[in-house]
């Protein structure tokens, strides 16, 4: 089914405009012909009688405006757009500019029509970007029958069937089936993700080729998709400073121009005479005084910006945050889980005494046994990769030496795994290694030193690029905060191109540090953003000008605390958002300057009689149209991607 591009009301409006236009043209030509034949003044001598035929198209096209204007007068809404247009055209009729009065109303309505159409179009195309709302759910009954229901009616525990190509209606767990799901609408990530039995699946993703059965774990209104939609819709309610400025401006602009019109009609008429000329000029003022183009221009740009960001998998929770992002100067980032993966990995093995790397790892893994300590887990993982299945055997008994490591009796002998202190206490001859960024574990068996294992939290591969890119996007300094050791912090910091590293900070130390940085920026236009994984940095997220939470899809706390949510955990989204923000603000400013500029210009020209009502109508609806088209540039992805 193809959606009609025009609504019923719009089609009616179109008919009205076209019929009024035809009648208007007939009248203009008729008047011209009669005039040529010299009969005009004979038949229709009186100006008021000449006016009557023009009232027909005037009321056809402008009837609704007149009606609203009259209602407005009753309610004392003197600065209402309809009222102003009504007054301006009545004024034009009064000074005998019949055809112009009618044409202005016609042109105004044509403009409104296109403006309405364009706003709807843009609203539609931005909404399409966020088109993640599921329309239905397939509920599987116990008898095997399938019923199509509204996603709102799904209850927790219901089994739902997801056919290929369908949207996942509510958050759930896969019960049966395997498929690739496309999470692009949520995360902006175009590579589909594989889901199998017992995997969690988020609403709003699109199912690939396989059929899935899922068990609903949340109701629709608590599911990811409806929370995201609600947030994006609320986002444009949090107004940017630019928008508040323009709303305030509009509140003053209209009355001032209207009083200007009044003054223009009265004062020069008394001083220099020719009242009709001045009344006509005052009428052009009234047309220009309509503020809609101005008020529309800014929210439309921000709506476009927020839409563009959500297409990239970034939720911006308010226009104001987008505006702040455009002035971003300092980025403060947490280390673990944000710049690093937050999991320990064996980065290097240095064997000694003819032992092989695999030997070192396997021996250590055997001793670590079933320990859940992150270091043990990383060694076991590395040992598993290093080889030969079955090589990792368990221990017979193990002794934990606090602050040192452990001693385990295994099939292959007594194994000591631990730090340098452990080796010295066991009187094992070993080579002491040093690496600032790593934790080093020494391994020995039956008193013989086998080698050292270097373990560190791995840095995200894209982090260095993302930081360089942030700088290209205009960020002046990047600060890293970490609770880790100074040496580890400095090593990661210098590897990633971080300007300042603050290590060994407790959680409230992080808040204090951010406060200190904010202090330096206060009073300037430079803003500070904090990036965290949202797990235990909520206070810092809240304190920064803009709090950015990473990789937090599905984490309620992070979505609550942050101002901007990056749905996957890709750091490269941050420079992208900065660019989107800058472009949004640039477009909003262009629109403001253009709209105010044209209005003031036409006001000035109108006052001296160089711009007629036609130009005035352009300054109103024409400018609005151009602003809309300008805002639509936000939808062009290439303009802010590198």
């Amino acid at each position, binding site marked *: 089914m193809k959606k009609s591009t025009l609504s019923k009301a719009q089609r009616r409006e179109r008919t009205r405009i076209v019929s009024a236009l035809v009648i208007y043209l007939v009248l203009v030509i008729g008047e011209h012909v009669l005039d040529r034949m010299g009969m005009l003044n004979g038949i229709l001598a009186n100006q008021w009688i000449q006016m009557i035929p023009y009232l027909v198209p005037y009321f056809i096209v402008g009837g*609704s405006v007149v*009606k*609203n204007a009259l*209602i*407005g007068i009753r*309610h004392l*809404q003197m600065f*209402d*757009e309809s009222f102003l247009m009504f007054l301006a055209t009545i004024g034009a009729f009064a000074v005998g500019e019949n055809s112009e009065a009618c044409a202005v109303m016609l042109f105004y309505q044509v403009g*409104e029509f296109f403006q*309405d159409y364009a706003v709807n179009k843009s*609203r539609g195309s931005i909404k399409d970007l966020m088109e993640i709302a599921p329309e239905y759910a397939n509920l599987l009954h116990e008898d095997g029958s399938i019923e199509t229901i509204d996603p709102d009616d799904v209850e927790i525990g219901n089994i739902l069937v997801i056919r290929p190509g369908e949207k996942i209606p509510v958050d759930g767990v896969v019960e049966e089936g395997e498929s690739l799901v496309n999470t692009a609408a949520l995360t902006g990530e175009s590579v589909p993700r594989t889901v199998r039995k017992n995997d969690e699946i988020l609403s709003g993703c699109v199912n690939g080729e396989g059929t899935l059965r899922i068990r609903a774990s949340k109701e629709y209104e608590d599911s990811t998709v409806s929370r995201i939609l609600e947030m994006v*819709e*609320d986002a*444009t*309610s949090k107004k940017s400073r630019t928008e508040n400025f323009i*709303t305030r401006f*509009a509140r003053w602009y209209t009355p001032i121009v209207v009083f200007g019109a009044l003054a223009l009609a009265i004062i020069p008429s008394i001083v220099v005479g020719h009242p009709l000329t001045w009344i006509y000029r005052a009428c052009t003022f009234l047309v220009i005084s*309509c*503020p*809609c183009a*101005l*008020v*529309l221009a800014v*929210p*439309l740009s921000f*709506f476009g910006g927020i839409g563009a960001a959500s297409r990239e998998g970034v939720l911006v929770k308010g226009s104001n945050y987008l505006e702040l992002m455009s002035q971003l100067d300092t980025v403060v980032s947490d280390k673990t889980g944000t710049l690093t993966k937050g999991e320990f990995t064996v980065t290097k093995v240095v064997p000694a005494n003819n032992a092989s790397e695999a030997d070192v790892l396997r021996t250590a893994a055997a001793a670590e046994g079933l320990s859940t300590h992150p270091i043990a887990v990383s060694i076991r993982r590395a040992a598993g990769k290093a080889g030969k299945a079955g090589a990792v055997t368990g221990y017979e008994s193990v002794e934990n030496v606090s602050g040192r490591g452990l001693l385990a009796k295994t099939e292959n002998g007594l194994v000591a795994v631990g730090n340098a202190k452990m080796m010295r206490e066991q009187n094992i001859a070993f080579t002491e290694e040093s690496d600032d960024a790593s934790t080093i574990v020494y391994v020995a068996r039956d008193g013989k030193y086998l080698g050292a294992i270097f373990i560190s939290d791995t840095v995200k591969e894209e982090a260095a690029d993302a930081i360089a890119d942030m700088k290209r996007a205009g960020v002046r300094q990047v600060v890293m905060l970490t609770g880790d050791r100074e040496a580890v912090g400095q090593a990661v910091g210098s590897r990633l191109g971080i300007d300042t590293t603050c290590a060994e900070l407790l959680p409230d130390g992080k808040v204090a540090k951010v406060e200190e940085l904010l202090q330096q920026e206060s009073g300037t236009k430079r803003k500070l953003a904090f990036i965290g994984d949202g797990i235990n940095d909520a206070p810092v997220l809240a304190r920064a000008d803009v709090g950015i939470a990473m990789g937090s899809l599905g984490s309620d706390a992070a979505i609550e605390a942050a101002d901007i949510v990056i749905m996957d955990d890709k750091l490269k989204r941050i420079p992208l958002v900065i660019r989107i923000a800058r472009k949004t603000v640039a477009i909003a400013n262009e629109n403001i300057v253009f709209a105010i500029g044209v209005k003031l210009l036409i006001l000035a020209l109108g006052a001296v009689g160089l711009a007629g009502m036609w130009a005035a109508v352009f300054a109103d609806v024409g400018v609005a149209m151009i602003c809309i088209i300008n805002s639509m540039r936000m939808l062009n992805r290439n303009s802010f991607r590198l």
Partner: protein
Amino acid sequence: MKKRFKIEVDCANCAAKMEEAVKKIDGVSDANVNFMTQKMKIEADDGRFDAIMDEVEKACKKVEPDCQIFR
């Protein structure tokens, strides 16, 4: 109580004026009229919500006779 309504309003300035008018109504603690998404959010006293909504509608019609609120 916070509630969200779909609305129809054609001009951005009218939406701003509607918001202003609605905020002044007694019993409304917060209001937001969003022109872009065509939604209105009202936060008002629980007990009198319906009565308040009648007033909201009246106030909006006063500002912009063509507007519609879908309740």
